């Protein structure tokens, strides 16, 4: 090359430059500050103003936050304590949190039975582990996860052990009916028949079975009424239930909405649009008052159960749309790839479509979860004592009349911890499921 083109070459490099360290001012904390905080005079001014603002804010709020009045038993008590240490500009009366802690946590749940909700909370994490960290926990633990809703409900409400067992048997009934019927007709019809069979079991037969079994073997723990539930116990019970059930129901609704069967599709669209078109408060009012009118007199349909059903349905409708978004984002090629290998509809959905669609929808799903969890505070409107309802009750009490910020800051902080954890978990999950570009 060199000799043929010698006269046309203007420049030839004969020594290669070695790699050099970048200038110090562009790396490390100094470099970071330089590029992000002080690049140009406008940025520098904004940085300084913002910094002054933050410092000022902290200087004002911090003394209020750390005023040591944890032992006060009433607002007056608290004020006296502050006056005694010469705290002029006032401070937070955290005494209310300490004094009302059990109530904020458990509502009016009998104090000697507090161990039951605490145990349920611990078991909840055990049950969640195989779902949240599937790759680090043995698959066998999923068995416990399946039993947990029944075990948890029994521990919370108490009563005879035959209640959760017969409820669980409802699924067994459904399964047996399904496997028998599906030998004769197709999967869709047999699923329908199986659901009907389970519902019949739960609504009619189960009651007698429980009576019979309790007569034979009266195994029971002290029962707790729904109106004794309150505080975070109530929020978490309703929130976790809605979160757990809204995802599967939402997935089914989303699939139904994309179905080629006109009836299934119409039902799903109708349900989703109706629920999304109605405020949650309305649904809760229906649950608390109207439902009683429609139900046969004397039916004992638990208020918390009614609220849980409404919240779950509400969340499912939103979930369905989030999942549908994920499904729409998948190309036709994935369906064709699955079809061409001979996978049937449910196999293709479970193994190919859903894992990808759900992964795409993680941010939306978690947003819905967080929304539902926060929406549980709306039950205070139908006079249930969730933390906000309790806060109002506490403020109505003579000894804490006039307290405001401390309670709401505390409740807000607890909600924040839960919601922020969900958000962080979703980011972790997204990173973990990242398998390179398509």
């Amino acid at each position, binding site marked *: 090359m060199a000799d043929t083109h010698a006269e046309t070459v203007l420049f030839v490099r004969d020594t290669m430059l070695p790699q050099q360290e970048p200038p110090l001012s562009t790396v490390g904390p100094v470099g970071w500050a330089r590029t992000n905080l002080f690049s140009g005079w406008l940025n520098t001014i904004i940085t300084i103003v913002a910094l002054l603002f933050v410092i000022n804010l902290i200087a004002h709020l911090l003394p209020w936050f750390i005023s040591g009045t944890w032992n006060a038993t009433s607002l007056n008590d608290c004020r006296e304590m502050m006056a005694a240490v010469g705290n002029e500009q006032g401070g937070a009366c955290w005494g209310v949190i300490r004094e009302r802690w059990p109530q904020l946590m458990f509502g009016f749940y009998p104090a000697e039975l507090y161990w039951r909700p605490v145990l349920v909370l611990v078991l909840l994490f055990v049950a969640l582990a195989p779902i949240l960290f599937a790759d680090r926990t043995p698959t066998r633990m999923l068995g416990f996860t399946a039993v947990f809703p029944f075990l948890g409900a029994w521990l919370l409400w108490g009563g005879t052990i035959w209640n959760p067992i017969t409820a669980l048997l409802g699924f067994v009934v459904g399964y047996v009916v399904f496997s028998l019927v599906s030998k004769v007709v197709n999967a869709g019809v047999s699923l329908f028949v199986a659901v009907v069979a389970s519902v019949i079991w739960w609504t009619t037969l189960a009651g007698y079975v429980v009576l019979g079994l309790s007569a034979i073997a009266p195994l029971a723990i002290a029962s707790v009424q729904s109106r004794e539930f309150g505080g975070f116990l109530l929020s978490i019970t309703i929130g976790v239930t809605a979160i757990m059930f809204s995802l599967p129901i939402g997935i089914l609704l989303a699939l139904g909405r994309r179905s080629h069967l006109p009836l299934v599709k119409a039902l799903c669209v109708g349900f989703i649009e109706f629920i999304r078109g109605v405020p949650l408060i309305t649904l809760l009012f229906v649950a608390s008052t109207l439902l009683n009118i429609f139900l046969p007199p004397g039916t004992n349909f638990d208020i918390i159960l009614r609220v849980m059903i409404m919240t779950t349905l509400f969340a499912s409708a939103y979930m369905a749309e989030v999942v549908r978004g994920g499904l729409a984002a998948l190309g036709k090629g994935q369906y064709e790839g699955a079809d*061409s290998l*001979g996978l049937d509809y449910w196999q293709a959905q479970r193994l190919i479509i859903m894992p990808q669609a759900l992964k795409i929808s993680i941010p939306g799903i978690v947003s819905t979860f967080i929304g539902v969890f926060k929406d549980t505070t709306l039950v205070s409107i139908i006079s249930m004592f969730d933390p906000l309802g309790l806060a109002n009750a506490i403020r109505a009490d003579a000894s804490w009349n006039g307290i405001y910020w401390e309670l709401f800051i505390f409740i807000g902080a607890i909600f924040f911890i839960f919601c922020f954890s969900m958000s962080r978990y979703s980011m972790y999950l997204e990173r973990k499921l990242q398998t390179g570009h398509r």
Partner: protein
Amino acid sequence: MTDTAFDTTPAIDPAALKVSDEVAIEISNMNKWYGSFHVLRDIDLTVHRGERIVIAGPSGSGKSTMIRCINRLEEHQSGKIIVDGTELTSDLKNIDKIRSEVGMCFQHFNLFPHLTILENCTLAPIWVRKTPKKEAVETAMHFLEKVKIPDQANKYPGQLSGGQQQRVAIARSLCMKPRIMLFDEPTSALDPEMIKEVLDTMIELAQEGMTMICVTHEMGFARQVANRVIFMDQGQIVEQNEPEEFFNNPRSERTKLFLSQILGH
């Protein structure tokens, strides 16, 4: 569109490729419409076991639609399609049975991006054929070796080159031990040097006697491997012949025009 990919591959001996009398696919009087648009018109085609058929034709002529009807990715509205003695009707059991007997490779591979290469290959054998996992993995590794990428087994499709992905797609189909393979422009999304590696894999398959129907613009491949070339235009089969005759002595004007365009002379 070029013959270049073939310059280095050894010619295969056509005598080694025997076509049996057994009928693998029989399409008779098949018609298909998209809405009111008549895409496939009176298609008649019989494919014997061991045949390697190349389908060519201008864009939009219905090539993809036709081979997709064979495993019912598309539904035909009239006429008959019989695959391996089973007629394609709306009976879902038959459809899934035929799909598990007929492998298909797509232009855009359609690998499952959330599964590793190995999982892509073992999924269908495990769930459709109910093969034990260990055996499915052995089969998968066997076919991955055959397409020369066993060392990529634990990577994800997104980490492979286009040519490698297409070879995985072929291996994935082969793991189902299909009796017929359909290819829909398997190389048209690939760079020239990747085209060669995919075509080599397909030639090897042909040599082993696989019944193949292949939509492609690789005329070199058609000359070398096909025992029949079918030319389609406007939803109809316009001409079919042995490759030598087809290329050297096309009968219809439409074919002549197409060949002169595609071969660039």
